[in-house]
């Protein structure tokens, strides 16, 4: 169940939690293009360092990152500007990233991209080195909340900053405008009996427990052991109120259309919003007042980085217009420079953090999803 623990703290995999705890979750299904291209990209990443034309001696920047974060055309721009070579190694999940980074104590890579929870882990493992945001001048262009480092969990340690936020996605609420006079304010609307059978929630153990905890006004990532039965029942109540729990965004979209759904908890964030709007639905998007769970991917410099200045230059480059726009347009992700559009209410992001007991959440969720009736009695 180690995989599961990783998965639950991994924002990249937020949508895969719940019904299948025993699988290693590999992918970001939200990017089908990437998933199709991944074998190619991985191959490219493997072959690129072997290319004979790029002889040794030339300075090289070694990136360990995700599909979509270092597209070839943008990498070429950077290479031309700095007269260096960039070796991109792509990973599909956090476990691979962990093993690759840890292999030579971070000697193999200069720069990695990981979410805040993972950064926290790497800082603890002493695989990263602190960086000075002041040396990366484009950080000045970022929104304030992405520069308020102490408030972002996991990326500071002992007063030192270890990562620069790069991209994020939050999980807000999508609602059918024709069925709401006022936009829903709170995630408790998911439990609203008036909407019974017209609510769609996500099939994911970690997020759903976080959601239930949030609804009760508690810390979503630190559920007290005694609170589990209560939250279990809360989730059974959710189960009785929803039409169903979806897994894939396409699935959600067709359910939304077929069953006249009023409220949808958007695990895939704005991508789902766009999908529904493209399908012609008159939908709004809100960040509930309790705050929206969100993952935040950051750049961090590994402890074994060869060329600190070059690594900082890449971070700087990634915060420029072309890369930020590519995130938005190619990946449907939000960048850290502009506030996203199409938000009915401004709201707070709750950056994902490692949860207290992912296995327990998963175990319970499986039972809840299978349809068990309360009370949920946990075997000792």
């Amino acid at each position, binding site marked *: 169940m180690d995989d599961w623990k990783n998965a639950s703290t991994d924002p990249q995999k937020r949508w895969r939690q719940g019904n*299948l705890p025993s699988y290693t979750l*590999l992918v970001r299904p939200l990017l089908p293009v990437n998933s199709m291209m991944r074998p190619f990209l991985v191959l490219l990443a493997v072959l690129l360092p072997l290319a004979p034309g790029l002889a040794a001696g030339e300075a090289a920047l070694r990136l360990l990152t995700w599909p979509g974060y270092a597209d070839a055309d943008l990498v070429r721009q950077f290479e031309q500007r700095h007269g260096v070579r960039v070796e991109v190694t792509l990973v599909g999940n956090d476990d691979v990233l962990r093993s690759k980074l840890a292999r030579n104590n971070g000697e193999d890579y200069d720069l990695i991209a990981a979410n805040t929870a993972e950064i926290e882990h790497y800082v603890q493992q002493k695989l990263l080195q602190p960086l000075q945001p002041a040396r990366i001048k484009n950080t000045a262009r970022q929104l304030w909340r992405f520069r308020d480092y102490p408030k972002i969990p996991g990326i500071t340690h002992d007063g030192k900053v270890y990562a620069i936020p790069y991209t994020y996605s939050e999980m807000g609420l999508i609602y059918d405008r024709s069925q709401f006079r006022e936009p829903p304010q709170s995630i408790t609307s998911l439990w609203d009996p008036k909407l019974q059978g017209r609510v769609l929630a996500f099939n994911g153990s970690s997020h759903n427990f976080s959601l239930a905890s949030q609804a009760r006004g508690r810390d979503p990532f630190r559920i007290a052991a005694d609170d589990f039965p209560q939250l279990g029942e809360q989730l059974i109540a959710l189960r*009785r109120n929803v039409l*169903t729990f979806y897994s*894939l965004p396409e699935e959600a979209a067709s359910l939304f259309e077929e069953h006249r759904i009023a409220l949808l908890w958007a695990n895939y964030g704005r991508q789902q919003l766009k999908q529904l709007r493209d399908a012609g639905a008159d939908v709004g998007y809100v960040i509930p007042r309790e705050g929206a769970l969100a993952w935040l991917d950051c750049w961090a410099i590994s402890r074994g980085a060869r060329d600190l200045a070059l690594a900082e230059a890449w971070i700087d480059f990634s915060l420029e217009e072309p890369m930020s726009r590519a995130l938005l347009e190619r990946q449907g992700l939000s960048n850290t420079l502009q506030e996203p559009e199409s938000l009915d209410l401004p709201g707070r992001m709750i950056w994902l953090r490692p949860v207290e007991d992912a296995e327990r959440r998963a175990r319970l969720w499986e039972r809840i*999803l299978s349809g068990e*009736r309360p009370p949920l009695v946990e075997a000792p």
Partner: protein
Amino acid sequence: MKFGIAFKLGCLLAVFGVLACGLTGYYSYSSSRATLLKAAERDLLTATQVLGRNLRGNIDGVSRDALVLAGIAQGKAMPLAPSAPVREQAENDLAELFETLMRVHPEYMQIRLISAAGHGLEQVRVDRDGEQPVRIPYPGLQEKGHFDYVFDTLRLPPGQVRLSPIVINHELGTHSGVGRPTLHVSTPVAGADGQPSALIVINIDLNQLFDQLRSDLPAHYQVYLSNRWGDLLIHPDQRRTFGFDQGRRRFLQDEFPDVQQLLDTQTESLIGRSDGKDTSLVAAFVRLATNAGNRESFVVLGLAQPEEYVLKESSRLGERIIQVVIFASLLAVLIATIASRAMTSSLKRINLAVQQFARERKNAPLPVQRQDELGQLARSFVQMQEEIVEHLEELSRSRNALEHLARHDPLTGLPNRRVFFERLEHALAAARRSAKPLAVLFVDLDHFKQLNDSLGHSIGDRVLQAVANLLRSATRESDTVARLGGDEFVILIEQLDDPGRVVAVLHKLHERFQLPMLLDGHEVKVQASMGVSLFPRDGDDIESLVQQADRAMYVAKNAGRNTYSYESNEQR
């Protein structure tokens, strides 16, 4: 290097023949190959459609079971059963029925009656645990209202059947069904008011269902099944199936790009190809609607076989065609060789004949019997040859006549002075070599002038002719009798073994001259004076010999004519 017409012509014919064979072979191969491929694809498509119908048939069977169970449940008015014992009895009956059905159908993993009330609470549930059906008692029953097979089925009018999307069953407590690819076949049970008040759900293990279907297929057929998005549900490599359940979607259209068309449009079936690393596959895909009336709910069923298998037949055909083409080409080369030989052998014969004629004026055999242009050429040539020969003969005749004229005396036909001196020169040369003596004999007629004047020139001419005959008749063939002019004759006697013979000749001539000649009724007496010179006695050159003979003749004249002088100059 120079090539003859035979070679060039042969090459041309051979190239043409080989080209014709090759092209014919190629086109027949490619068209038959296309036909074979079409046929194989059609077979594959038919097989897929049959498989689809079988699948449909199997599922229809399950649907009928579901409908029968729904009918029974409705008959027992279970959802609204008045009292607990009655309801319990009905539930037990139904559970027994479920168990019986599951024993018959190993692919049934679970049969349930689910109430619309109580958030879709299960009312009767029989699971499969290995071979055995197991009835789940009340505490284990679960709420299933949030599953699509419940909320979608409850929206259907009674009598209709819903087929769910195929998923991996993760519902806890389903015994053998956990983790299996599952199809939910469900139908509503009508309550007293005619509205659905419950539903019957049969879970089918997709793998078992397909194992049954697959057993009817040839081993090299590979079965594919995908949902409406192309997610692989059945694949020869089982690890690739249900990727969406593991967070990594794997699509049929990634392997067979043509399938996209089936997913996106209303196309019912198509042939697709995949170009794998090792083998290319040809596959037929059909679209099977799962819920009538809903265009969005369908699965894609496919059968694939390695392309090489399909092409085996056509490559066999190709081999045979290659053999035929090679044989025909060899034949073409052979025919070309023979034809070019036949053509040029006549030409060669004509050429040879021309050369031979030019060289030796001889007629070589020509292909005149041929009826074609070459025969014509030969005939023309023969004609030309004949004409040339004729002309040449005439030319040589007239040349001979001219030459004769130039070397002979026209009156007597005897060699003239020029010829005599030529022969004398030759004879001298020969005599010197052989050391055999020769004689020159001068003959001068006596009183010929008077005779000419008295009897006339014509008689004179006759006399000369007669004298010529006389001289010829008295000498050997090999001796030369010539007329030097006027009434002077000369005789060259060669190879004189015995000089005494000259005297004999002289004597003989003298005697003959004593006889009168009868010419036109005139008796004419012609006599001659003769002188002789001998080689080597009287000299060893022409001049001295002739002079001596002349002198000797004059000696005879001076001696009273009609005599001869044989003696040498020195002896007198």
